[in-house]
């Protein structure tokens, strides 16, 4: 694929890997967090870990939108899906996220009309085609997907669609990062910034990380060369004693972000005072609800939901894993109560989460080192 394959060139990758090796201090252990789940996926898909020196460790951040949805919200979604006449729509990878008892996939097996969509606009189309049914869209994601939900709601309003509504679970990336950075036992040396989020919000919201916490941030693209280069840039900052926001993804991310998208979001959404994150607990002003002007499309107002908070089990230590304080296997429930088949915490829910990856491949990773 033109304009993409150039960023997947193995020889160039080796060259950057060699530069990374020359940049690290062999006596130091580096922990770099990739904030975004999209980066985690690329790192896994291209085997980028494997190209790094053993003392450069990548820590998967809180930026996987499906993994951070708390069980109570999934339960609410399932309750709405079971309402008579409801067509419940969501993104594909939301279907297997566990609530307190079931997943949406299981709700579908029990008779709920749950449909996978690729875009909120697909949900809107389903609403137009089924005027006698209530169509609900379970909106999730960071600032990356929020604008498309916002535009969809604007369109629904313009068309006067009365059978469409939305469960808004949109979250914002800066508050959880701040929560992580506030932690006194933080062990992270630098951050790979979330390129997709930055196309919307720009680079500026991340300046607090070097300014207040003295850690470098490099906003990165999603191709393997982008990520390797961003790691190199972070290591160079660390070696030079610098900490600033650098933009590796200049070809897509403007410093000021996408003003039109931000404007639409401001019109359709309002900040929630607080929101619960799976594994991280409540974080204030970290999520969006529909604004008063769009309240008529708010599924949480239209349908009765249990709205019961389901606490993460006390023993779950996802927060510490995310902060890099403990390794997955040091968590009290890892491998016993919490497994990929019966995940408790966010790090085990997604196959790319730190705990799931260790559960599946930890043994192999050790073997690889022994070779």
């Amino acid at each position: 694929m033109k304009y993409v394959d150039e960023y997947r060139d193995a020889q160039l990758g080796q060259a950057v890997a060699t530069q990374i090796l020359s940049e690290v201090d062999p006596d130091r252990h580096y922990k770099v967090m990739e904030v975004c789940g999209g980066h985690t996926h690329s790192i896994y898909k291209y085997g980028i870990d494997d190209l790094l020196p053993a003392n450069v460790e990548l820590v998967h951040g809180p930026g996987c939108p499906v993994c951070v949805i708390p069980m109570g919200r999934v339960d609410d979604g399932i309750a709405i899906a079971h309402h008579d006449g409801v067509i419940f729509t969501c993104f594909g990878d939301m279907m297997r996220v566990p609530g307190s008892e079931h997943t949406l996939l299981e709700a579908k097996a029990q008779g709920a009309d749950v449909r996978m969509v690729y875009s909120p606009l697909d949900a809107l189309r389903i609403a137009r085609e089924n005027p006698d049914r209530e169509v609900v869209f379970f909106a999730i994601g960071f600032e990356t997907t929020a604008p498309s939900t916002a535009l969809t709601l604007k369109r629904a309003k313009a068309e006067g669609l009365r059978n469409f509504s939305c469960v808004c679970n949109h979250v914002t990336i800066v508050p959880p990062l701040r929560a992580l950075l506030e932690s006194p036992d933080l062990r992270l040396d630098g951050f790979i910034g979330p390129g997709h989020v930055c196309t919307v919000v720009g680079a500026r919201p991340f300046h607090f990380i070097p300014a207040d916490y003295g850690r470098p941030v490099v906003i990165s693209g999603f191709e393997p060369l982008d990520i390797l280069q961003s790691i190199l840039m972070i290591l160079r900052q660390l070696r030079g004693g610098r900490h600033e926001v650098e933009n590796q993804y200049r070809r897509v991310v403007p410093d000021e972000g996408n003003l039109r998208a931000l404007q639409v979001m401001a019109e359709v959404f309002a900040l929630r005072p607080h929101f619960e994150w799976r594994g991280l607990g409540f974080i204030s002003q970290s999520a969006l609800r529909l604004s008063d002007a769009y309240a008529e499309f708010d599924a949480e107002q239209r349908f009765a939901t249990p709205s019961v908070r389901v606490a993460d089990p006390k023993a779950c230590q996802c927060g510490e894993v995310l902060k890099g304080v403990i390794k997955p296997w040091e968590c009290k429930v890892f491998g016993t109560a919490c497994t990929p088949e019966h995940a408790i915490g966010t790090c085990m829910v997604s196959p790319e989460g730190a705990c799931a990856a260790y559960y599946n491949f930890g043994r192999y990773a050790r073997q690889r080192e022994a070779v």
Partner: protein
Amino acid sequence: MSESAPTRPPPTDREQRVLQIIETARAKRARFRDDQITLAHGAGGKATQTLIEGLLVPAFGSETLQALGDAGGVTIGGARLAMTADSFVVSPLRFPGGSIGELAVNGTVNDLAMAGAKATALTVAMILEEGLPSDVLRAEVEAIARAAQAAEVEIVGGDTKVVPRGLADGMYLSTTGVGAVDPRARLSTAGLRSGDQILVSGPIGEHGTAIMLARDQFDLDAEVESDTCSLWPAADALLGCAGEALHCLRDATRGGVASVLNELARASGVGLVVREADVPIAPVVAAAAELLGIDPMYIANEGRLVAFVAREAADGALAALRRVAGCEEAAAIGEVRPEPPGMVMVQTAFGGRRVMDQLVGDPLPRIC
């Protein structure tokens, strides 16, 4: 890089203990504990495995079944036969490159071919939905007849049932097939040996991609046709060229090449290494899969096989395979290693390595 790079500290006792717990859990036989059937149980991944290995195999207690081959072996009057059944519930019924009727013949013919048997006879059972237009049925009956003729197999029996409207998606087909196992065949799911080369018979992911696009869920148009075809000519060529050096054949249907490789790595207790850059894949399939956020290695094929051939016979086998019509783009994509047992590793085209695991259910598109 490992020689020059610093190494991680050795595992602590606690980590060793946790790894041991995981190993013990993984080694346990799959148990079927789900409250209800979900679509994941039909997707060919881990959920399907728990259904088959946790419920069906223990209940039926057949030794032949335990081998988990594409077809079961039966000996009647000294003759080695292979026998198999397959059901077809595809939607839409017709799609670019094929239709349910063609799949129903080729699917069963291919399961037999993977056991080293040329299909001799098939039965076809049809479950028809009230209201199905006769033209649609007629077209599928003709498709079945054509595919059977192309595969040189006789249709010797069948059944028809009609269910009320809404209880079937137009029509469901189920075929059973039988054939004599070729005397050259020494195929087994447990037959993979270190050094074996892994061959695929052509570009992967075309059938599943064609179906996904034909469902019209996405505003995406691409010229992709199903790869459905009889794989007996390919199996025949491999048997003829490699004989006993051909250790295993498998058609990479639901769950795709990745699921097949995982099943066989487990069944044989070996490790597999796949060179991603060598896996043949049409640019249009790669592009569609990337847009949909799906790995083509997990996409279903209906006319592609994976073969395991002893190293010394592999070059000849690949050449023979490429001479078969439809297999011109066959390729060697990796090899069998002793370690790590039960796991499939990928050398990525970018130069890294990763584990290619079995999925739980259908590959679900990612949001980011």
